[in-house]
């Protein structure tokens, strides 16, 4: 489960993983650490691999050659499109919400 240690913009583990991989290929543990830094969310290993499995099924990410136990993952063009669409939707929502807040 994704636990928020600080109030972040999203706790959707798939979006967090895609956002992390948008910065370059990473293995599972590196994704967990990266997400904790940029989003303040501690992804559990079970949550991480459930999301990785789902993202691989949706062909949003793909595995690269393993080095030892660790296997890096890379975001695919389909994954980039999905991430872009989701972030755009979040931006629209945030803009709309902030505009309404100004009128309160």
């Amino acid at each position: 489960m994704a636990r928020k240690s600080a109030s972040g913009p999203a706790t959707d583990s798939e979006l967090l993983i895609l956002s992390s991989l948008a910065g370059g290929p990473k293995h599972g543990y590196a994704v967990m650490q990266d997400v904790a830094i940029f989003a303040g969310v501690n992804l559990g290993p079970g949550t991480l691999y459930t999301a990785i499995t789902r993202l691989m099924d949706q062909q949003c990410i793909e595995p690269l050659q393993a080095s030892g136990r660790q296997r890096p993952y890379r975001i695919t063009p389909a994954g980039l499109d999905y991430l872009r669409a989701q972030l755009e939707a979040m931006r629209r929502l945030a803009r709309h919400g902030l505009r309404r807040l100004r009128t309160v």
Partner: protein
Amino acid sequence: MIRDLLIRAYPRSWRNQFGPELAGILAKRKMTPVLVADVLASAILQHLRHDPWKIWALGSAVWTFSLLILASQGTIGRSAFLWCYFAGQLLLFAAGAWTGLRNDSGIWNALSASAKAALVPVAGCIAVSSLAIVQYYGGSPGLHGHGVTYWIGKNVVVTTFASLLFGLAGASFGRVVNRFRRTLRARA
């Protein structure tokens, strides 16, 4: 020890693909109840994802055993129990149909999923109803001229056959719907 058990909680095919990576991460993390719960929840999800028939097996097992408990406590009558049991068979029909719809690889796959879904509740039903036969009729000299063994055997055959029949019907239904959908798609 706990780490190995947690990895083993996942389906074998998943373990082969992701096991070493997850083991590497677990080795770096401190074991806490939250972490164990997180991994176990993920393992259950992977089981349901890899073997969807387990969802139906779980559903039909819960259904059947709830009925048996209610029936044994006299909460529901005999005829209500029979109707509910029949509804349970419809659940197996649904399991077959769902697998037939989801998995277009063959009717035997759908039938096998339905049979697996039926295995636990059917075994439970056979055990409990056989027990009831022994309990209620064991002392009787004969039931319509037959002994208890005959009735238990008949119970086993009828329950198994009915479950397979409903599963097969569901699987066939799923296949027919799939074929119909393919035809519609081809025309469009």
